[in-house]
């Protein structure tokens, strides 16, 4: 089978023993005991510590750097400037549109481009001393005009973030999918709005860290770190560090949260690696909290939308025109991949027939964007649902009714949306009906009416959103007609080995653990295959050397991809086990079946060999086996992305690149205080359909956790840069993460519409509630303040912003 056709359709069996059970997680005991093995828990003999001097300015030329005093401080081993670093390292790996023109290095060289950018790295006996020395470094800056507002950055007279680029536009293109002109012409109603989504970010409680150890004897650079993704691309990091690709070994540690921000977060490894090479000592560089807020390379989307949605008078959506100006900050490492995430589900769960999409990526003096849970598709969900609600209001349609009229029907799958991507399966009505049933809206509407009489404002929001999963490699390059590297690999791998006692070990090859549950998923999947207990499966992580290709978490891909890899590896083991059993049981292949964790003669359960029986034979008794059977019982599967197709030449069809698409309906119930603009939650109903669930409670945790992050995005969190580019939110006193008191009480529902194309019908769901919550909360705010005529068109909807909206609605 080539990967240009959809995978074979599977029949999803209803009979499962382990998949679908909310077992306790295999990961947990070590974390509960305080033995998590996070990167900072590791210590290497002779290890030194790094700290950075960060730029206090948004945009400035580095006139001079005096490191004399810093170098003389006792306990300091090295002080490395950006100019030094530019000799020791090559530029950072960069998947952006023009890396030679927007060159990104691990430390700034002749100018600084954002507050927090690293300028000098100090290496010392302790982090305390490294920071003392950092304070002694004297940097002279010549201030340049900061480029802060994304629209101002477009002006001809704007200062340039990167002079070689010639402008601040890193990428701009309009894509037309379907006959947009005709569809607009045929529509009786067009609603239009301008929407603003400000940047926030993952902000995990654990920062990014690496311990690099360059062995001058062997030339091997070993890096232990809490970020290991895209292992096939590590040769690029090796290139940056000027070591041969086969002399770089990256070893993963569990990450204390990521939410995207540890996806390929290689600058920390680059700095640690560089310092280790310079000093010949192991070096730990662990971001401190300010590093992680200001210099993480993983800020979230920062978009201005101008959108038009065209509909019939009956509210049937026909087409949309989207112009998205995205403020990428000072570098653009992933290009506009975030918009690929948007285009994967740009039309949401609706039958919109055509889309025009213009993306303008503008550079400014801010930290660059990276990945944040949703990776740009959650922003699209918010934008689209805002427009659907605007249309509903315009047409005097109930928000539920307009959605029903436009849903892709459950018999229409697989459904190809205008961009070319496919939605594998879905039953949106069922999810909506389940949510409505759980929400008891009649009761809340009655409460809302009563509250209004008392001058209080209760609101009910309702959104229905797509939740794509498992990205392909093409979304990195289909932006260009002649891409430099039209890559097509994005695999995940698992090795299963069976020891002489029949015990199974599963080896994973990326930093698979971020707080998701890869060990539990794999254990349940392996247990399903081999009829063993999940807790008896040993799950380990391998480093990149000798490692199989692996992508790691992102785009909700881990469970599906691990499932494919486990299935593949299990199949190979079972094939070999069957051959051994044929021999041991003296039976023909057709007479044997796999059952109860072993092989038996069909119809004669007493004639069987357990996996342990078979395994010990393979390990110890070669001469008892046929010649062609090798010793050992181990198999690997490199599971490539199961459904990727190429974009067409003019990019009017991007192909399939995110085929497993789930769905969710969120209904938050809130109260808004019109005096202060405060939003409090009365209830939060969330129903998700991510296909077959491996561990329902684990997925529910991503619903609650993702939703609370979505609440953060919707109401509390923003990286605020003032007009001079000063980052005003450099601590957790100003960057506000929701506490338990800001989290709602949840009512959770699951639906399962299996994927026809994945093992067990699993789809990804890890991005969870954050995909929907911002859209849902905006809808709830509108509903609460409907008597005042407020519409939430920006996010976060902070109390001050809400009051502003109330005041301007009064003024009208």
């Amino acid at each position, binding site marked *: 089978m080539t990967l240009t056709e959809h995978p074979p359709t599977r029949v999803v069996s209803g009979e499962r023993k382990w998949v679908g059970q909310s077992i306790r997680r295999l990961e947990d005991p070590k974390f509960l005991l305080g033995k998590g093995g996070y990167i900072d828990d590791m210590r290497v003999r002779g290890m030194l510590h790094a700290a950075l001097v960060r730029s206090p300015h948004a945009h400035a030329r580095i006139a001079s750097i005096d490191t004399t005093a810093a170098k003389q401080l006792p306990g300091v081993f090295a002080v490395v400037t950006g100019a030094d670093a530019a000799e020791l390292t090559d530029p950072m790996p960069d998947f952006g549109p023009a890396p030679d023109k927007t060159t990104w290095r691990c430390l700034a060289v002749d100018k600084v481009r954002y507050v927090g950018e690293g300028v000098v790295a100090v290496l010392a006996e302790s982090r305390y001393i490294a920071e003392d020395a950092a304070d002694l470094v004297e940097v002279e800056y010549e201030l340049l005009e900061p480029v802060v507002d994304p629209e101002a950055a477009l002006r001809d007279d704007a200062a340039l973030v990167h002079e070689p680029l010639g402008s601040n536009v890193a990428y701009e293109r309009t894509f037309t999918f379907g006959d947009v002109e005709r569809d607009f012409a045929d529509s009786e109603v067009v609603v239009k709005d301008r929407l603003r989504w400000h940047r926030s970010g993952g902000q995990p*409680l654990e920062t990014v860290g690496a311990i690099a150890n360059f062995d001058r004897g062997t030339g091997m650079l070993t890096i232990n770190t809490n970020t290991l993704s895209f292992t096939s691309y590590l040769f690029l990091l090796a290139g940056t560090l000027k070591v041969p690709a086969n002399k770089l070994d990256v070893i993963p540690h*569990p990450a204390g*949260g990521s939410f995207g921000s540890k996806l390929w977060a290689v600058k920390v490894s680059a700095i640690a690696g560089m310092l280790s090479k310079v000093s010949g000592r192991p070096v730990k560089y662990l971001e401190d909290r300010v590093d992680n807020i200001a210099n993480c390379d993983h800020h979230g989307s920062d978009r201005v939308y101008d959108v038009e949605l065209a509909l019939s008078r009956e509210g049937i959506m026909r087409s949309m025109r989207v112009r998205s100006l995205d403020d990428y900050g000072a570098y653009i490492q992933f290009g506009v991949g975030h918009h690929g995430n948007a285009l994967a589900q740009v039309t949401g769960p609706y039958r919109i027939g055509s889309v025009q999409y213009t993306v303008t990526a503008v550079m400014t003096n801010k930290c660059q964007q990276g990945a944040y849970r949703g990776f740009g598709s959650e922003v699209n969900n918010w934008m689209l649902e805002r427009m659907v609600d605007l249309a509903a209001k315009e047409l005097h349609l109930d928000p539920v009714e307009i959605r029903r009229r436009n849903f892709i029907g459950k018999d229409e799958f697989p459904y190809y949306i205008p961009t070319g991507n496919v939605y594998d399966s879905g039953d949106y009505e069922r999810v909506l009906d389940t949510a409505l049933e759980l929400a008891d809206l009649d009761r809340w509407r009655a409460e809302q009416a009563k509250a209004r009489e008392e001058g209080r404002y209760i609101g009910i929001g309702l959104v229905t959103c797509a939740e794509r999963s498992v990205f392909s490699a093409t979304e990195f390059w289909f932006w260009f007609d002649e891409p430099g590297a039209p890559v097509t690999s994005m695999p995940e791998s698992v090795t299963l080995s069976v020891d002489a006692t029949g015990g199974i070990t599963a080896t994973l090859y990326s930093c698979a653990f971020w707080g998701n549950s890869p060990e539990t998923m794999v254990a349940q999947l392996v247990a399903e295959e081999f009829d063993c207990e999940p807790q008896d499966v040993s799950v380990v992580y391998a480093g990149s050397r000798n490692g199989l290709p692996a992508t790691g978490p992102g785009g909700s891909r881990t469970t599906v991809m691990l499932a494919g890899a486990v299935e593949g590896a299990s199949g190979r083991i079972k094939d070999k086990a069957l051959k051994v059993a044929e021999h041991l049981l003296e039976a023909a292949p057709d007479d044997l079946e796999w059952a109860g964790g072993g092989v038996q003669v069909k119809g004669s359960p007493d004639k069987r060999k357990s996996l342990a029986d078979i395994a010990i034979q393979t390990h110890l008794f070669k001469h008892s086996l046929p010649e062609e059977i090798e010793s050992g019982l181990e198999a690997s599967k490199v599971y490539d992305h199961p459904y990727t197709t190429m974009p067409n030449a003019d990019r009017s069809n991007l192909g399939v690149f995110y085929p497993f698409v789930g769905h969710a309906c969120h209904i938050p119930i809130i109260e808004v205080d019109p005096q202060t603009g405060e939003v409090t939650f009365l209830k939060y109903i969330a129903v998700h359909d991510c296909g077959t669930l491996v561990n329902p409670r684990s997925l529910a945790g991503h619903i609650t956790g993702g939703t609370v992050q979505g609440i953060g995005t919707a109401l509390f969190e923003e990286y605020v840069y003032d007009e001079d580019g000063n980052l005003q939110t450099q601590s957790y006193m100003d960057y506000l*993460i929701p506490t*338990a008191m800001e989290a709602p*009480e949840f009512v959770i529902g699951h639906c399962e519409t299996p994927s026809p194309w994945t093992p067990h019908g699993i789809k990804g769901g890890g991005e969870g509630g954050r995909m929907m919550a911002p859209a849902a909360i905006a809808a709830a705010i509108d509903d609460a303040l409907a008597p005042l005529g407020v519409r939430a068109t920006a996010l976060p909807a902070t109390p001050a912003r809400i009051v502003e909206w109330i005041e301007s609605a009064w003024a009208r």
Partner: protein
Amino acid sequence: MNAVRIATTVNGVRYERDVEARMLLVDFLREELDLVGTHVGCEHGVCGTCTVLMNGESIRSCITFAVQADGQEITTVESLANGDMHPLQEAFWEQQGLQCGYCTPGMLLRAQEILAANPDPTREQVKEEISSNLCRCTGYAFIIDAVLDAAQRMRTIGGEPAPGADQEPATEVPEVPERVPGGEEARA
């Protein structure tokens, strides 16, 4: 270096050390005593990841100097299990009250403190008490479930079972609905 000799008891073990005056308690625990269960989060006293108990009361070890532990008793997450897991740890495990595990040691100690003061809290009370500690993964729902579960386990250990007051139920995670076997074969 401005070294100060301190004597402190951590998890019941007495230590004497010379420490730099500015050494933070969290670093003392992690680096000097190799007790890596206490984690560094924000380093400015907001997130609670570094929570330990001093003389039985929760404090933030990232904004406490090691010298302030002189003569005091410190308790860290490592004190909870003694061969077997503490009922709190069992409860968090059962309820999936953790995902990445990074906030968990601080949460466990706060939970221990909360339940010591109030063995039968309501859901609302637990929610308010744990709001001192940030979690970025769970959205808190299952942490609250875990604390209430632990409360029940701890009320029934060491003597008569003591039923709790009427409480709101734990976060309901519905049963996986009945699958339609072979339901998707229609699609080719």
